[in-house]
Each structure stands twice: as structure tokens, then as C-alpha cells.
């Protein structure tokens, strides 16, 4: 052995000695603390403390495994893996409990962050029963008076809540009509096909169960599909021509479609200066 190696060995041994002294000191310190009950374990470890202790030990074991792998040594039959599996199972079992506690934990964290609870906080979850009592005393008084005089005006019974239209101006009404026409025009088959072609999402095939049109629509779809595949056109029989004509009489003319589409291009109805 050369002198260099001897000096190196001596240095390493002294380093080992000093490090072991530090370790023993740390362990004694911890033991003293645990025995003097500085860590409160009387009620058992709390749920949250267990959770982060488990996470920490999981991380430690994981780093050990990755260290072994990076050094090239095998990790087969390593007890670390069993420990990892055990910790993982426990964490999985803890997850549903965690989910149930989530709301409470979030609230506590929020109060800690904001620094105090506000008594008028709307999230202080307790229903106020006084708000649920209806003020029945006033109604019973007025009824006795009302019986004597009967008004001649007919007031329809108030069954459901209705939208109040009294404050709408003429402009608002026109605008609403325009918006509705726009919405209807945007969902015509023409634009729907355009949208299908240029959108990047997948094509949707929707199963509709409209019994009236299902057979006719299915037949029509089959026919168009065949026509497009084979680059030919079927001749329309007299019966089919008649059927198409029936539907035709519902829609008036070619011009109709164009007028139908016009709302899309009309910008907002000009608002009167207020």
C-alpha cells in the first residue's frame, strides 16, 4: 500500500468517526424528546399527521429505489418495494375519508389564511329557521275585510311565476325577435353541414327516436349515401315525387330560405339615443 492510500484511508476513517458521533447525538436527542412526551401521542396520531408522515416515508423509499436504479444495482426482492406497496395501499384507503373531510379542511385553511371569521360570511353553513316562517298574521287580518267588497275586475289566479314584460320597449322587442330568428337561422341544416365540415372535432352521430320521420329519414339517408358512394342519381318515382310535394307545400318558396338566413347578417337593431 502506498503512502497516499494510507493517508486517504486515515482521513476517511476519521470522517466516519465524527459522523457516527453526530448520528448518535441526534438519535439520543430524538429518544429523549419522545420519552418526555414532547410529541403528543396520547390520543393516537391524527389523520392528517398520519397522512403526511406516510407521504414522507413514501418519498424516502422512492428516492432510495431510484438511487439503486441509477447506480445500476438490482432492486429485486428489496424490502423497500414491500414498504412502498404497503404505504401506497394505506394512502388509497385514506382517500375517501380525505374526500369527506375536504370541505372542513378547506374552510379551516381559508380562515387561517384570511385571519379570522366574519360573522356575516355567507358560507357559514347554518340555515336560519326564522327566514322560513311565513308572515301569516297579516294575511288573516285582511281576509275578513275583503269579503265585504267584491271587485268587478277579473283577476286571473296566480298559479306560476310569469315573466314581467312591462318595462320592455319596442326596440327591445324587435331585438329579441331578431335574436331568435338569428338563432334559428344558425341551426339550419346548411350551416350545420358547413360547421361539421370545418370543425376539427369528431363527427357526432346522434340516435334519434322520432317515430314519425325515422323510417322516411332512414330511407332518404340510405339513398343519398348510396348515390354519393356510386356517383349516380336515382330516378324519382311518381310516388316519391308526390311525397316530396306534400312536404313542399308546407314550405312556400325558394326565397324563403334566403330570407330565413338574412338575420345572421343583420347587426343589432339601432338603439334610440337615450
Amino acid at each position, binding site marked *: 500500500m502506498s503512502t497516499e492510500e494510507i493517508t486517504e484511508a486515515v482521513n476517511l476513517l476519521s470522517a466516519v468517526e465524527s459522523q457516527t458521533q453526530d448520528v448518535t447525538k441526534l438519535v439520543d436527542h430524538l429518544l429523549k424528546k419522545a420519552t418526555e412526551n414532547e410529541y403528543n401521542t396520547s390520543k393516537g396520531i391524527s389523520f392528517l399527521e398520519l397522512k403526511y408522515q406516510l407521504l414522507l416515508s413514501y418519498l424516502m423509499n422512492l428516492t432510495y429505489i431510484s438511487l439503486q436504479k441509477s447506480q445500476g444495482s438490482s432492486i429485486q426482492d428489496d424490502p423497500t418495494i414491500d414498504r412502498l406497496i404497503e404505504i401506497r395501499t394505506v394512502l388509497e384507503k385514506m382517500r375517501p375519508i380525505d374526500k369527506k373531510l375536504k370541505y372542513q379542511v378547506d374552510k379551516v385553511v381559508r380562515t387561517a389564511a384570511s385571519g379570522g371569521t366574519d360573522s356575516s360570511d355567507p358560507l357559514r353553513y347554518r340555515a336560519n329557521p326564522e327566514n322560513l316562517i311565513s308572515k301569516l298574521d297579516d294575511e288573516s287580518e285582511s281576509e275578513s275585510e275583503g269579503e265585504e267588497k267584491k271587485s268587478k275586475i277579473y283577476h286571473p289566479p296566480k298559479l306560476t311565476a310569469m315573466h314581467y314584460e312591462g318595462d320592455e320597449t319596442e326596440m327591445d322587442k324587435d331585438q329579441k325577435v331578431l335574436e331568435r330568428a338569428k338563432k334559428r337561422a344558425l341551426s339550419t341544416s*346548411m350551416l350545420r353541414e358547413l360547421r361539421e365540415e370545418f370543425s376539427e372535432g369528431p363527427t357526432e352521430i346522434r340516435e334519434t327516436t322520432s317515430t314519425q320521420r325515422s323510417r322516411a329519414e332512414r330511407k332518404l339517408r340510405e339513398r343519398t349515401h348510396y348515390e354519393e358512394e356510386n356517383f349516380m*342519381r336515382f330516378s324519382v318515382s311518381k310516388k316519391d315525387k308526390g311525397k*316530396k310535394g306534400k312536404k313542399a307545400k308546407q*314550405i312556400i*318558396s*325558394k326565397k*324563403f330560405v*334566403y330570407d330565413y*338566413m338574412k338575420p345572421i347578417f343583420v347587426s343589432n337593431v339601432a338603439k334610440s339615443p337615450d
Partner: protein
Amino acid sequence: MSEGAATIRTRKFMTNRLLCRKQMIVDVLHPGKATIPKTEVREKLAKMYKTTPDVIFCFGFRTKFGGGKTSGFGLIYDSLDFAKKFEPKYRLQRHGLVEIKKTGRKQRKERKNRQKKVRGTKKAKVGAGKKK
């Protein structure tokens, strides 16, 4: 591609190497106007696909109910020779490349009836001249 108010879009494009052509479905959008004639569709397709319009054959245009949209088929051949080879005669006739001689229907029926009266190879001779 739009000119005036007509837009042409093509769908289901396919290059048919066996028949030396490109075939597609042609959608014409013409809101407020009548169906665009085939010659105009040919011009526009020629511009889109950078060929001459004489190798383009379009047919089968049907206007959707209510107007505004027409779908048809379009074929673009690699060359006019291939077109003459593969296209059916009636479509070539539409472009004026082939003349189909048509005897009138009445003439054909009369010839058939004359043939009925004769047996065997004499049938061929019968149609040669109109009797009386």
C-alpha cells in the same frame, strides 16, 4: 371560390388511378339564385384545380328543397384521351365530342314491326329501305 353569390365546395375527393381521373362531390351554394348551369360549374372547378375545363365532366346536379344548395358529381380526367376512353357516350355528347345518330322513335318501331313479318337473315335486309 365565389363569384357573384355562388360558392363551390368539394367533398369526398378521391383520385381514381384506375380510370385516370379525380372524382368528387360538388356542393354549390347559391342563395337567392337559380341553379348554376353546368358550364359555369366547370369553369369554376377548372380554376380550383388548375386544369382546362374541357377535361371536367359534371353531372347529377340536384337542388335541395327550398333552394340555395345544389349537390352534384364532378370528374376531372388526366387528359382528354382518357376522357374519351372512359366516359359514357351521352356525357361526351353533352360536351360535343361525339355525335350520336338518333333515328326517330316512330321509325324504330316501324322497322321492328316490318322485321316481325320476315324470318331469319332477311330481317337485316328489311330495315334497309322504307317500304311505301
